[in-house]
């Protein structure tokens, strides 16, 4: 499955968990939540697939010469860019998908990466409250 499968799995599991919690929250606390839920699920699914494609691209790119890898990664980025464009276009056109839900879904995986890696250390928060002059 490649070098980075475990990392991908960790991110996918966390993203799916958060999305399920949001979906349950929407279902309980909002009226007519279906378009938002469909949009969120659609956007998240596409962003997960895009992340998987990115991983495959980069795993392949590191085996190339640096200049070739640059061109390869950039060209593959534009394919993902077009995919995202098609997804947003569909969500704008389809009444049963909420565009805001789709956008949140598309950006969700990036938010999860930030949260997983920046706020996973308790010492980070403890250090904020330690006054330097007190040392």
């Amino acid at each position: 499955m490649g070098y980075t499968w475990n990392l991908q799995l960790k991110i996918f599991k966390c993203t799916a968990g958060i999305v399920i919690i949001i979906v349950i929250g929407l279902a309980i606390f909002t009226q007519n939540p279906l378009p938002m839920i469909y949009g969120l699920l659609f956007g998240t699914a596409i962003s997960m697939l895009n992340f998987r494609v990115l991983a495959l691209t980069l795993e392949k790119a590191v085996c190339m010469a640096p200049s070739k890898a640059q061109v390869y990664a950039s060209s593959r980025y534009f394919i993902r860019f077009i995919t995202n464009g098609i997804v947003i276009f569909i969500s704008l056109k389809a009444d049963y998908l909420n565009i805001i839900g789709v956008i949140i879904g598309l950006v969700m995986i990036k938010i999860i990466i930030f949260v997983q890696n920046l706020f996973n250390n308790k010492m980070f928060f403890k250090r904020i409250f330690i006054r330097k002059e007190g040392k």
Partner: protein
Amino acid sequence: MENTNFVMIFLNWLMSFDRKALILAASAIGAGFAMIAGIGPGIGQGYAAGKGAEATSINPKTSKQAIMVMLIGAGIAETSGILALVVALILLFGNPLVGQSGSVLVIAASAIAAGISMIAGVGPGIGQGYAAGKGTESTGKRPKYQSTILRTMLLGQAVAQTTGIYALIVALVLMFSNPLLKLL
């Protein structure tokens, strides 16, 4: 003298068009400008991949850690491209400006400005890709410090993203709740 005032001649010529046509034309220009932001992440991700290949060729033993840092960094670098795409496609397919009342010139200019503001997405895209590349390079050199490097890289990328989000906010304000129309 009047014949040489080209700005007035141009504005009068613009006003000779239908209101809706003028706003739609401005939206098309705006959407085109917004798409320029897509270049940034492309350059950034390319740079990161190049650095990843370099790190792997220098020290193949550390390639696994380097690729993990690169994957996370490159994934984050895509965000400003998505935001630009959202604004461009809203201008094209879900245009909120066509139905607005007020001066046609202000609305048309706002449509173009919304697109131009999204060009700011080039900066975060390149910057985040650069950070991802440097993170990959340093992980290749010192894989022992992978978690510290990753955290520092992501912190830098999060800060770099802010200007892209400001641009998105300005574009959305211009499109959905234009404060300039209230001043007329």
